[in-house]
């Protein structure tokens, strides 16, 4: 496998380099998506299947699609604006020197790193049976370091509010040259793929309790199902959100906070779960997180307050 690893590492370095120095934006984006594929592979190699799932769904998948769509918008809005003016020669050379020194330092530091066994992670693995969930990463996310996850949901919500404030939604409407709209295969895609994507998403959320998967990966896949429907013109972005929709958006973070605060007087600490209920509570939290993540990512994609079904 050493050969495999070396080729993979080399490919990652080359792809990153090419993506940054690509002469035009589109090539940069395409190479970035390919880099995502390789990163997922390398994370699988590095014993992190959870992260490979996340990279496939969020990093390479949703982000790649969003980058492509944004590139299309820019292309349409300012067709001449093919490329940016490069930085001056001196700046580039300084940057080359600076980044080489920086990268070299990181590499030397990483190889000299003495990793001890006396770590928080070892303690996490040892206290798994107290966490109420077998899968170590999910246990860290929802129990040992649940506070991080809770605040992270806040970050997601704020990024969404910010995107809504900018009022630059991605609108998929037919116009001259949008050849895909009238293709009959679009409806095949919507009909065949969507249910499968939704099922895979729900499965991944559920799987988080005992194997790789979890609210983030599953939520991102569910958001992917929504994006698919948008691209196939089954859904469209809309300006008015109902209370229900907003409720689902904040469901994850609210459930987390309310459960934590309600149990605090009895348990003596915020987000401490009573041993008997821990599994049930974690499943409730995980599914509410997944719903909120899916909707937030979908709305971050469209940049609108709501999505609605197209009535045909």
């Amino acid at each position: 496998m050493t050969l495999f690893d070396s080729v993979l590492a080399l490919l990652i370095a080359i792809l990153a380099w090419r993506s940054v120095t690509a002469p035009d934006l589109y090539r940069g984006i395409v190479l970035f998506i390919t880099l995502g594929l390789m990163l997922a592979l390398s994370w699988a190699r590095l014993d992190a299947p959870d992260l490979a799932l996340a990279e496939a769904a969020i990093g390479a998948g949703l982000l790649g699609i969003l980058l492509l769509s944004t590139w299309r918008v820019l292309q349409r809005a300012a067709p001449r604006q093919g490329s940016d003016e490069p930085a001056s020669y001196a700046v580039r050379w300084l940057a080359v020197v600076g980044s080489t020194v920086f990268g070299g330092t990181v590499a030397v530091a990483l190889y000299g790193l003495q990793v001890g066994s006396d770590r928080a992670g070892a303690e996490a693995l040892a206290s798994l049976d107290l966490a109420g969930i077998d899968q170590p990463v999910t246990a860290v996310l929802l129990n040992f370091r649940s506070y991080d996850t809770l605040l992270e949901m806040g970050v997601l919500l704020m990024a969404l509010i910010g995107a809504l404030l900018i009022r630059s939604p991605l609108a998929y409407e037919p116009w001259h040259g949008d050849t895909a709209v009238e293709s009959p295969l679009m409806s095949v895609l919507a009909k065949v793929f969507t249910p499968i994507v939704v099922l895979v998403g729900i499965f991944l959320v559920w799987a988080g309790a005992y194997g790789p998967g979890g609210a983030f990966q599953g939520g991102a896949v569910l958001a992917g199902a929504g994006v698919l429907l948008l691209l196939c013109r089954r859904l469209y972005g809309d300006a008015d959100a109902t209370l229900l929709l907003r409720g689902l958006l904040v469901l994850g973070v609210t459930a987390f906070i309310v459960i934590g605060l309600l149990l605090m007087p009895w348990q003596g600490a915020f987000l401490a779960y009573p041993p008997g209920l821990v599994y049930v509570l974690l499943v409730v939290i995980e599914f509410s997180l997944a719903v909120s993540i899916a909707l937030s990512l979908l709305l971050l994609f469209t940049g609108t307050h709501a999505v609605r079904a197209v009535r045909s």
Partner: protein
Amino acid sequence: MTEHLPVLAVFLPLLGGVLQFLLGSRGLPVWPLAVAALTVGCVLLLVGAVGSNGSIEHAIGGWDPPLGIRLRADGLAAVMLLLTAVVGAAVSVYALGPHGKASPQATHFWALWLLLWGSLNALFLSADLFNIYVTLELVTLSAIPLVLLAGPGKTVAAALRYLQFALFGSLLYLLGVAITYGLAGSLDLALVGPALADGGLAAGLAAGCLIGGVLVKAAIVPCHVWLPPAHGNAPAAVSAVLSALVVKAAVYLLLRFWTEPLAGLSGTLVAQLLGALGAAAIFYGSIQAFRQERLKLVVAYSTVAQLGYMLLFFPLAVSQAWDGAVYHGLAHGVAKASLFLATGNVIAYVGHDRLRELRGLDRPLALSVFAFGLASVSIMGLPPSGGFVAKWLLLSAAVETGQWWWAVVLIIGGLLAAAYIIRVLRYAFLQAPGPAVDVQGPVPSAVMAWPATLLGLLAILMGFTAAPTLALLGGLPGATS
């Protein structure tokens, strides 16, 4: 009950903001004001408890470090929470003016502002390196949408630049966290110190990334480019919060790291370098402030300059410097919030902030001009004001350690501040007849005028409240005296 107060200080405003988003414009402005009042009450109780019993800790989920995350309210956290509560209360009242009526705009303002308040409290209370990364992102991503509230057309370029720098800074910080975890096997501020002190390349790199990432977020020269356009174009209430609290949060982290996890690092060179950056920020920011043609940009560049003073702690590094740097942060926070709110009133009245065309404002806007003047005294560091006490403490620290060059920096900085402030006062307020007007607004109401004035008064009063505040702060961590 006391040990639950840190949690409530974070989650009252956070939950309040989330519910405001959920409810839309229903409940405006009663709901956010009630949440703000509760938050202020909770913070006051917490600060009181810290003052009488010393620091309060709360292990979240009942998991003690290194496995879990700790909230910790110590002296430094308490004074920052207090500053946030004071400025937050004033801004919440002020915002009733521009954002009091039910509208989508107002909904977003209150939701984001309460979320930002909760995020700031979370940042000050956090005692975990990775958790600090998440709270930094929370603060950034609630601050940038607030900037956009001024209307996306004007602020989008500034917001974009702000976002890019903030993202890069926090990722650099995260790299430092990653290496620190590799070295120490823990993320708790109190536990990573020994591993970072070993002096190896990895430890140095980790410390460098932690400091560098926070410096980018703190808008220290040369990473300041995003600050003036962002702070100069945001709505007044938002500029006040950004300058008084958000960038201060990043500098707070520098002080925190230097005295706790990085305390074992023998870094006289780094300390002098940070001091030099501070001096550069003071000179550059002041000179730029002097050259601006818009009132808000003067105040924004003044923030770039004033942040530099807090960095002078690093080379001085004695008890008095600690007191001086922190007290400077507090005094500047109060004074700068007052300046931005007063400026907001000017803009609301005449519809622009072009310095040369703001003449004779002292009659219609007496209260706001008064507030501007009071706050300016503190910014210039004249007695009796909070700014004076802070600079005096820093000056005596420079004398005590025999580093006269920092004393020179302090004195020149004060003179430069006086120059740009007096230029503003001369142009804007003391030349009759009346101002050129773009869009004539109403004379600002009491809710808009008084918060600025009270903050200005407080900036002066802080010249007399140094002793109890510094007692609460509790001296330089690790110092024997």
